[in-house]
């Protein structure tokens, strides 16, 4: 039985566990129908031209976590941003882990999707926002069909959330290969500000496939900083579908740092519903081995006077493949749009490859849109210069690569994250230098 059939047939079993009369369940039944007709995407689809899911779909995943597994804080401390105080929503094999987490209902709601779906006081928020940003492509639909757990964050008007919020998914995969489908909903009301850090981490040698959907709503003048840290092991694959719907004058930024994982696909979509919106999409990808990273971004400019900035850097070693598929759509009404997109890549080894496709689709005339894309090598002269000054080749190369990726790091607003990423870059490049000299 292939994975699609398995998922479709297990939907009935899933129905036994959830409230089938709820508002959300209607959406779920629609979604499973969509998934049943579309199935998993294949390379024949333009958006999946360079990324094949075949290999990872062959595994025999267990689609429901069977038992609760617990892990000790000291074992996973290194995966958390632990040097600052944060709210934490932590899941182990898709189940909420209360002893590792730190949630709150004090003025703001930082809690669980399962709670939000069942408690009447969240009904309005759920009905107004749930599945209102996600598209009905096959993978998002699949997630919608099985949506039951994840992070639920609701920040009411005029709140500045003092601590960043960490959303971390651990998988122990104690029994077998595991498929996880977390569903996050983040609603930030007028004038509020929140910082979110998301991470998926596998602690096992068994295969893990995560198909995650995150919906983010930025209402008027809201500010959202979202950081995704992707440094999973060789057996873990991640399909991250993030949909961000922005209202006027809101600012949203997503930084994606990809250093590991077997196959990582980021579908990052921004929709601008309002004027004077600012969207930022940035990413650093440094991978090797047989890793495959695919950044698929969409910025949809619907109304006038908005901006978007995209900057993705990639360094590819060994047999790694990188894909960047960035799309900027500017609608007829979206005059005075400024949209920038840059994708720069370095191929380190002979067997690495990169496929990039920065697209512009523009229907308005009074706009400034540009994109740039480069593939190149490290500057030989700069390397030589450093070597003549006694810096070993490896370190010299690492310094140049760090400098290459640094633009993206500059806009990271939490210093601890910047430090953590810098350290990860150093580890990834195999050097022991601090960079922030």
């Amino acid at each position, binding site marked *: 039985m292939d994975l699609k059939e398995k998922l479709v047939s297990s939907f009935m079993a899933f129905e036994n566990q959830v409230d089938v009369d709820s508002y959300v369940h209607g959406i779920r039944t629609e979604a499973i129908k969509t998934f049943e007709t579309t199935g998993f995407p294949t390379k024949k689809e*333009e958006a999946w031209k360079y990324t094949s899911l075949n290999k990872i779909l062959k595994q025999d995943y267990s689609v429901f976590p069977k038992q609760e597994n617990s892990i000790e804080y000291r074992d996973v401390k290194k995966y958390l941003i632990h040097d600052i105080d944060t709210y934490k929503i932590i899941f182990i094999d898709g189940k909420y882990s209360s002893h590792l987490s730190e949630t709150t209902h004090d003025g703001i709601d930082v809690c669980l999707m399962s709670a939000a779906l069942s408690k009447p006081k969240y009904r309005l928020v759920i009905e107004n926002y749930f599945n209102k940003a996600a598209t009905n492509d096959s993978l998002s639909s699949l997630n919608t069909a099985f949506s039951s757990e994840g992070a639920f964050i609701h920040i009411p008007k005029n709140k500045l959330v003092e601590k960043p919020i960490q959303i971390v998914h651990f998988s122990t995969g104690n029994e077998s290969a595991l498929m996880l489908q977390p569903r996050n909903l983040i609603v930030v009301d007028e004038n509020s500000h929140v910082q979110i850090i998301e991470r998926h981490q596998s602690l096992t040698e068994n295969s893990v496939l995560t198909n995650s959907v995150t919906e983010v709503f930025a209402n008027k003048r809201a500010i959202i900083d979202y950081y995704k840290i992707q440094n999973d092991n060789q057996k873990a694959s991640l399909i991250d579908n993030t949909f961000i719907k922005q209202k006027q004058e809101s600012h949203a930024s997503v930084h994606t740092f990809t250093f590991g994982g077997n196959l990582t696909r980021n579908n990052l979509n921004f929709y601008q519903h309002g004027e004077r919106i600012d969207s930022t999409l940035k990413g650093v990808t440094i991978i090797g081995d047989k890793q495959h990273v695919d950044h698929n971004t969409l910025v949809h400019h619907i109304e006038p006077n908005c901006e978007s900035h995209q900057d993705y850097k990639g360094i590819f070693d060994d047999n790694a493949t990188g894909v960047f598929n960035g799309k900027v759509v500017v609608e*007829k009404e979206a*005059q005075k749009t400024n949209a920038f997109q840059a994708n720069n*890549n370095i*191929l*380190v*080894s*002979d*067997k*690495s*490859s*990169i*496929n*990039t*496709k*920065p*697209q*512009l*689709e*523009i*229907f*308005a*005339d*009074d*706009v*400034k*849109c*540009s*994109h*740039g*894309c*480069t*593939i*190149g*090598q490290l500057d030989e002269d700069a390397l030589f210069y450093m070597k003549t000054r006694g810096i070993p080749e490896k370190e010299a190369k690492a310094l140049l690569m760090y400098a290459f990726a640094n633009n993206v790091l500059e806009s990271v607003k939490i210093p601890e994250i910047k430090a953590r990423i810098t350290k990860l870059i150093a580890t990834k490049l195999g050097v022991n230098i601090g960079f922030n000299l």
Partner: protein
Amino acid sequence: MSKYTEDDLREELKTKEYEYGFYTDIASDTFPVGLNEDVVIAISKRKEEPEWMTEWRLEAFKAWKEMVEPEWANVHYKKPDFQAISYYSAPNSKPKYDSLDEVDPELLASFKKLGISIDEQKKLANVAMDVVVDSVSVATTFKKTLAEKGIIFMSISEAIKKHPELVKKYIGTVVPQKDNFYAALNSAVFSDGSFCYIPKGVRCPMELSTYFRINQAGTGQFERTLVIADEGSYVSYLEGCTAPSRDENQLHAAVVELIALDNSEIKYSTVQNWYPGNAEGKGGVYNFVTKRGLCETNAKISWTQVETGSAVTWKYPSCVLKGDNSIGEFYSIAVTNNYQQADTGTKMIHLGKNTKSTIISKGISAGKSQNSYRGLVQINPRADNARNFSQCDSLLMGNECGAHTFPYIEAKNKSAQIEHEATTSKIGEDQIFYCNQRGIDTEKAIALIVNGFSKDVLNKLPMEFAVEAQKLLEISLEGSVG
């Protein structure tokens, strides 16, 4: 000074009729509509082709029957009914002329109307013309001068008869019969086209030029061009098209193959001005063209195109950089107006070491038109030190048109250096203000800016052609561009 704004320009663009839309009444010998094996055989027979050619066409036809029309392009149109097209049309009386006096005076008059005086070109521009009215070539000039150098420049049907060994060796090597839907169709039914062979070490002393015209209502034109530059040779080839006004859609599915052997250079320039349809988007030519060149060691192929016509354009002149140190270039201006749609660009396939490619694409969209750039730069694992530079700029006039960019970049070699940049903008008010301030009226200012925008590409055209290209830009954006 009367204020001339972009709105006025738009208004003018809307109402501007196709100037070159006239129809020459030459008695034609046209096949009944429809396509089947018998039609393919009949075309081949009519052209007195040898058996291998008939076989080759049939093979292509068999492949075509199995293929489906591609749909991936960013264009929307009513698909042509391939059984409702007549696949062969030739001017009736077709003796071979030695001098222009013998040519049908009506035809000469039609050329005059187009501003292509053969006499003038002969004398002043030193251009040899292989004039193609509908599908059969009726006049070839300067043949003698070329013959002295050993250059073969003739219609492809003549070449099939006179130089079968060359045609047989090279036809279909760059664009195979089964390459794509339209290439297969062309391979099966091509009526005529040009053939050009430059012998070893010869530098062709003049620009070779062909004018294509679709003339007969309801006849698709299937041109086949084959240019071979032998080792160390050089040729510059010009191709230009205009077509009369028609209400039903006409199909044009040409195939152009360029073969540049070691150390040779081919420069291929196109000015395309098929009938774009009227202001409501009715009629117009479908232009589905497959153009591809193959570069051997140290060879260079340069494509330059000015695309102003056709209702739907679907065209990707490509270079296969097979030999080491070979160079591919692509310079393009695509202008769309009213309901025109253009999906055009290039493919640069880097196979050899130290190969270089340059892509400069300028798109100008006005009215309700859609203009897309679609390009592929592919660096294969063995292509060490490959270098590519791409630049795609779009200029939008009015808020009902669209500009799209779909660049595909695939690098499989670490020593590759690739740069791609694209911009989209409109004519800045400050730019116009600056010109106005200096006494240049808005109309001229827009002309100036559009010209400046296109200059990178216009500069690449041969002298004689640049004038015509300017003229065609004028027609497309008339009243404002000079």
